[in-house]
């Protein structure tokens, strides 16, 4: 705080403050000389009294001098200023930083902090500009809106109406906060005004997360730091708060099971929790939350709405805590992707009566028969029936199991109307030479009789084994063994899985853009790979569930604000691909061509809610949530100590939120007369002086 005087001529009276000392020295009573019988008793009596008496007298003198000093200074009408007195009379540049980060959405007394901040700025600017009109120097106000970046900046807003329009166009956000970056921007913007008195006013909730890193790290990030620039921090919103939030939602074994992490900041509380799928409530409970602790909740046997032939794939799901003063972190959204029933056609080359346990198709059927929600519609044909089938395009997968040969009619139909994918499982009967060339080229005779086990998955091009076989990650593949297998030719495809001797177990090739999965061994007792082993059903389900190539790379359907959404299209789209936002607006995506297909990228995910990507072949839904990693859910105040550390030697004021925050900010900005405070201090000192004087006398 800098001091100036509104009536400086009164300061000429300051020497009068020494009057008590002068009176004490020059008008002291001359002591009488008295001859006395014995001085011993006087000396002894004075021994303890004299030092105390001397101290009393010094204190009394000091109190009187200070009292006079305070009275003279009060008469001179002192005023406190934030800016150095050398800046008095200069043109003024004020840059206001308005925090639009997520935490400013917090509602205090029915009004969110961002709105309160805007109202505060509007009122402050009104008074400042009105006061400026009365002085000779000009005042220019700039306003920058910041979160973890500068969102918006308006230099030198000329009048209060413009300020109002500008503020009305500012909207609260969902991003994190980086005040250091905003300060750096401010200093840089103000650096061009060399002859002006400069002030930065930060209007923010000043929660702990506004400062990132240590004070030293933050100081290095402010490149144009100028200690002559005064800074006023206005802390929006009271210190006390309570906030609950959903920290994360993860989907595993979807859709049967998913889990969510819940927490709270401020004080412990109880909140109703609910889970909805497609806006239907499927779960509810009241949970107790404790600050800084994570409560994990699991939701099992979540039954999505039954699927139908309409091919709707995406169902919005949400874990919700009862909405509180900071609502958007009380909900964590995700998207349940429900696959339509896959139509599987199994051709069994060795059907036994009733498709008994020795047939390949028996085991595939068993693998595809799931408890709970069904994903597959399975049809099994014998070779004769296969020969009569004409349209294979209605099937997602055709599995050829232990077929000795492919009848020509069937081959023709396969080539004319191919299915989504073809899988070839060899068995005892198989004679690759009697297969179409696009299959037989992958087989090298003869069969090999040796016991081998599986090795690791091998990524092939854009395909990853995890994308095709997500369910079997973590299996101990080396424990799965075969005692007979075909030697496959890798040159015509991509090897996805190998035996431990390096020879391919599974190859993905293609025929007319139709994926063809060739296996070196099949499921059969005679092949030594008993299908009862746990690996087989998962393997088959994964292959048949994902082999359509609809998603060869995993997609994250639940994002945080600011994270881009990426989606792979099998073919390059002919026109723009747009995304529908939660506020019903639509924006275009970025499209990046790949060797095969294209990546669609959408980066404008700053609003939480459900988004819809309109892609060729269907609409894809994804969810965006407030990012808990920003720390915006914890509103504990940072306090002024950190501000002082990163801005050393800066004239600093810190205004806490109260009914007179406006007044305090204005006082810091414009200066305030403090003669009353001096008079109060003088009164206090007068009381002390009276007590001292009485003490001396006693």
């Amino acid at each position: 705080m800098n001091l100036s005087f509104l009536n400086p001529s009164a300061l000429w009276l300051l020497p009068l403050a020494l009057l008590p000392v002068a009176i004490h020295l020059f008008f002291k009573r001359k002591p009488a000389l008295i001859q006395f019988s014995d001085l011993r008793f006087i000396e002894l009596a004075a021994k303890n009294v004299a030092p105390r008496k001397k101290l009393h007298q010094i204190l009394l003198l000091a109190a009187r001098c200070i009292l006079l000093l305070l009275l003279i200074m009060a008469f001179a009408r002192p005023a406190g200023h934030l800016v150095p007195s050398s800046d008095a009379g200069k043109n003024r540049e004020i840059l206001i930083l308005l925090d639009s980060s997520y935490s400013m959405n917090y509602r205090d007394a029915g009004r969110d902090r961002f709105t309160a901040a805007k109202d505060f700025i509007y009122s402050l600017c009104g008074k400042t500009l009105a006061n400026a009109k009365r002085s000779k120097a000009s005042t220019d106000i700039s306003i920058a809106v910041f979160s973890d970046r500068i969102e918006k900046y308006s230099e030198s807003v000329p009048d209060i109406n413009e300020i109002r329009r500008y503020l009305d166009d500012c909207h609260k956000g969902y991003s994190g906060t980086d005040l250091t970056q905003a300060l750096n921007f401010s200093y840089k913007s103000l650096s061009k005004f060399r002859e002006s008195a400069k002030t930065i006013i930060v209007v923010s909730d000043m929660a702990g997360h506004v400062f990132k890193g240590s004070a030293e790290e933050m100081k290095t990030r402010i490149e144009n730091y100028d200690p002559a620039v005064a800074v006023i921090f206005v802390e929006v919103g009271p210190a006390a708060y309570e906030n609950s939030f959903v920290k994360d939602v993860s989907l595993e074994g979807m859709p049967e099971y998913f889990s969510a992490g819940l927490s709270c900041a401020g004080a412990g509380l109880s909140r109703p929790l609910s889970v909805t799928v497609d806006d239907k409530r499927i779960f509810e409970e009241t949970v107790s939350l404790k600050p800084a602790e994570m409560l994990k909740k699991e939701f099992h046997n979540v039954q999505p709405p039954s699927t139908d032939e309409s091919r709707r794939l995406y169902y919005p799901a949400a874990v919700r805590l009862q909405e509180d003063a900071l609502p958007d972190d009380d909900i964590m959204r995700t998207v349940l992707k429900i696959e339509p029933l896959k139509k599987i056609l199994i051709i069994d080359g060795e059907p036994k009566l009733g498709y008994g346990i020795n047939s390949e198709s028996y085991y595939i059927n068993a693998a595809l028969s799931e408890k709970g929600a069904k994903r597959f519609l399975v049809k099994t044909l014998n070779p004769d029936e296969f020969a009569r089938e004409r349209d294979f395009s209605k099937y997602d997968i055709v599995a050829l199991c232990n077929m000795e040969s492919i009848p020509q009619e069937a081959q023709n139909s396969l080539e004319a109307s191919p299915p989504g994918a073809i899988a070839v499982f060899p068995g005892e009967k198989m004679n690759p030479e009697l297969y179409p060339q696009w299959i037989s080229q992958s087989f090298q005779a003869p069969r090999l009789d040796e016991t081998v086990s599986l090795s690791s998955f091998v990524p092939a091009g854009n395909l990853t084994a995890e994308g095709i076989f997500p369910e079997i990650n973590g299996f101990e593949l080396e424990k799965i063994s075969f005692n007979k297998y075909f030697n496959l030719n890798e040159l015509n495809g991509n090897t996805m899985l190998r035996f431990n001797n390096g020879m391919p177990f599974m190859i993905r090739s293609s025929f007319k853009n139709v994926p063809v999965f060739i296996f070196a061994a099949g499921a059969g007792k005679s092949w030594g790979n008993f299908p009862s082993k746990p690996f087989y059903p998962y393997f088959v389900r994964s292959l048949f569930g994902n082999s359509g190539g609809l998603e060869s790379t995993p997609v994250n359907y639940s994002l945080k604000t600011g994270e881009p959404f990426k989606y792979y299209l099998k073919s390059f789209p002919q026109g723009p691909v747009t995304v529908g936002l939660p506020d019903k607006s639509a924006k275009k995506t970025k499209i990046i061509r790949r060797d095969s297909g294209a990546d669609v990228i959408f980066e404008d995910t700053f609003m939480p809610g459900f988004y819809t990507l309109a892609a060729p072949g269907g609409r894809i839904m994804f969810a965006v949530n407030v990012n808990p990693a920003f720390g915006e859910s914890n509103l504990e105040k940072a306090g002024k100590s950190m501000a002082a550390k990163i801005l050393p030697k800066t004239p600093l004021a810190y205004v806490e939120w109260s009914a007179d925050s406006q007044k305090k900010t204005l006082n810091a900005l414009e200066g305030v007369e403090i003669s009353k405070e001096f008079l109060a201090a003088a009164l206090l000192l007068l009381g002390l002086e009276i007590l001292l004087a009485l003490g001396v006398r006693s």
Partner: protein
Amino acid sequence: MKLLDPASILKTGKLRLKARYVVEGIVSGLHKSPFKGYSLEFSQHREYSPMDEPKHIDWKVYGRTDKFFIKQYEEETNLRSYILLDTSRSMTFKDKLTYGANLAAAMAYLLIHQEDSVGLVLFDNEIRKFLPPRAQSEQFAAIYNALETAEPGGETAISNVIDNFGRLLKKRSLLIFISDLMDEPSEVLRAIRQFRFKHHDVIVLQVIDPAERALNFSGPVIFESLENTKNRFYTEPEDIKRNYSEVFEKFLEEYRWGFQSSGIDYHLITTDTPVETGLRAYLAMRKT
């Protein structure tokens, strides 16, 4: 100095100063003798006073003269007494010396009137004047004259003087000390007590001025020692008054307790009490 008339101090003349303890006298008189078995031979007549026992009235003389006379016998002993007056410079504070001298004169008058022998010792840090005890009426004049012309001396050194004086005493006597006792109490008590050990009767009259006791001064003061003018002390008496009273009373109490525990008759007299009042009160108290 101008002294009062001792007769007026003693007014009725009925006062007597008797030795409390047995003393040896020159002439048998008022006081008990330590020596018993002397023959009761008539010595002389003296005029009767109300203090005398009626059994000693010589009725034959009454018959002849119509006046009362008592017979003095040899076994009554006269008191040998000494009045020791402190004339050190501390006694010059206000009227302490004059007061003390008046006390001394009155005591001498009383004793001589009792036909006791009285001697005088004036001292400061040594004996300045010594009048050996005599009972004649001229002795009073000598004592009075010595008191009137007494000049204040040097510093106080009571214990030294007492020690020296003690060597001069041969016979048991009554010793009357008149002093402000502005000396180290332990030394003074030690010195005076030895007279009791030697069976002398000791009376101590401590003379103090009220200003010394209460330090009734105001404003800043430089106190200068009467006994050593180089010794000065600046203070504001109002500030130290309470402390001073405590210290001074402690000093007086030390003497009081010290003398009383040694069987020495001690009396504190302040100079604001008229001499006659003080002395009469003391003598009345001593009688009981």
